[in-house]
């Protein structure tokens, strides 16, 4: 028995969002008389951090503390329309909609503040701590709470805003077949290092090194968290997960979550991540989206690493020990490739 070390690489150019009849998302922002703001969405946060990021975007655009913004989402009965959380579109599409809504709400808030301070709204600025003051004269100040109360009880105004971000459908050019499926692209490159056991066909992850270009990372810790976890979803698709291991033959499929293979804490390996920030011109504060892209390059990188280790090219996922072993046997033994 020998364990062969192999290294594989894969790069990805990942479109943000989709192009099936147009890709819109909406947001509504309004203030309460307390001077706190609510963002209404119907977009779903499955743990990627959409609630945190839309909250940051709204607070930054309004010029108020992030603590003063509440994001009410995931209820399609009450929230404005969203296409959904997929295609790495959340931060980009929903974030842009929130930004537009917050900008409109900020306009009303500044007008209301201007009326209270008896100045021109263009002469006002927010301090990011819940106050609005005259530029260059911080003592002429009013809190967002007092503005909200004045708007509600004296001026009869709603401090609110509507936002939509729509990427219109890009039709296929009948002459060239060309289309623009997305307005911006994220990029990644991942190197996977594996060890393949030529007696059992088992593949063990040794380490991963990766670089991601994803626009501006609006919440760097959440981005890192998603990249770490997402890479392992990729490994899992590459090596473990399938409901039908002998598709289309349904036999030997997992019958429940006890038999369905997923990585556990003992499977993970060191993973070095570099995040490159190149702000997207049409992204909210330059953001694209890490989303699915963090899982995708792992699969070809692992397949390439297995080829590098034992010289077998498996093009059917997941790359189970059985497939590796059959391929090694059919070529008469392992054929380690040049070390890369």
């Amino acid at each position: 028995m020998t364990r062969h070390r192999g290294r594989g690489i894969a790069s990805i150019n990942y479109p943000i969002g989709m192009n099936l009849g147009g890709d819109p998302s909406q947001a509504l922002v309004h203030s309460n008389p307390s001077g706190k703001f609510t963002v209404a969405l119907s977009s779903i946060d499955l743990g990627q951090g959409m609630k945190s990021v839309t909250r940051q975007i709204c607070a930054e655009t309004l010029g108020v503390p992030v603590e003063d913004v509440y994001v009410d989402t995931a209820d399609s009965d009450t929230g404005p329309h969203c296409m959904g959380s997929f295609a790495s579109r959340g931060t980009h599409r929903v974030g842009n909609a929130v930004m537009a809504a917050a900008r409109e709400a900020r306009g009303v808030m500044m007008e209301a503040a201007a009326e209270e301070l008896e100045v021109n709204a263009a002469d006002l600025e927010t301090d990011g701590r819940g106050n609005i003051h005259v530029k260059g004269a911080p003592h002429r100040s009013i809190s967002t709470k007092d503005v909200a109360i004045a708007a509600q009880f004296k001026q009869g105004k709603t401090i609110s805003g509507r936002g939509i971000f729509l990427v219109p459908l890009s039709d296929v050019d009948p002459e060239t077949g060309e289309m623009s499926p997305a307005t911006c692209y994220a990029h990644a490159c991942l190197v996977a290092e594996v060890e393949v056991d030529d007696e059992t066909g088992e593949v063990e992850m040794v380490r991963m090194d990766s670089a991601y270009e994803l626009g501006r990372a609006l919440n760097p810790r959440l981005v890192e968290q998603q990249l770490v976890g997402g890479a392992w979803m990729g490994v899992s698709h590459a090596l473990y997960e399938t409901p039908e291991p002998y598709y289309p033959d349904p036999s030997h499929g997992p019958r429940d979550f006890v038999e369905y293979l997923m990585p556990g804490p003992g499977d993970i390996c060191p993973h070095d991540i570099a995040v490159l920030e190149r702000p997207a011109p049409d992204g909210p504060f330059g953001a694209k989206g890490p989303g699915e892209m963090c899982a995708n390059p792992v699969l070809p990188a692992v397949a390439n690493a297995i080829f590098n280790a034992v010289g077998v090219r498996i093009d059917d996922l997941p790359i189970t020990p059985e497939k590796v072993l059959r391929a090694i046997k059919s070529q008469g033994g392992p054929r380690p490739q040049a070390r890369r």
Partner: protein
Amino acid sequence: MPKIPVQFRHNGRDVAIFVDGGTNLLVALRELIGDMTPKFGCGQGGCGTCSVLIDGELHLSCLTLAETVAGRSIETLDGMKQGPNLHPLQRAFADHFAAQCGYCTPGMLMAAKALLDRNPAPSRAEIVEAISGNICRCTGYEPIINAILAAAGGRASA
């Protein structure tokens, strides 16, 4: 069939419930006691998100019959906070971004507590072993392991 009376301690408080024979502890905790912190994941002992401590030992509440815990002491995530303060493990989980969707978090915290209660200074390998019955579908094991190391006073690697 008559209901079975069961008395036990739940996070330091005496409770008494009536259960149908065969009711599992997870259902009893959630539906009869109202403690929603143990989560229902697979319902067959494969994911660990329903983990609770019974007399300080880690157990899967979905595989434990409620009638078998009479007279014993149950700890759940609901009892982990010390007054207004987060338990050091909870604090470390927050500081290390050890939750994404959060569904595995209650079970992870209970598995970690069971470990630290019996071994206050575990190695990384011992931590991996201790949480190996718990699945994180967001696959965020790295920050979870780092958080437990940090809570144990060890140095978490990046």
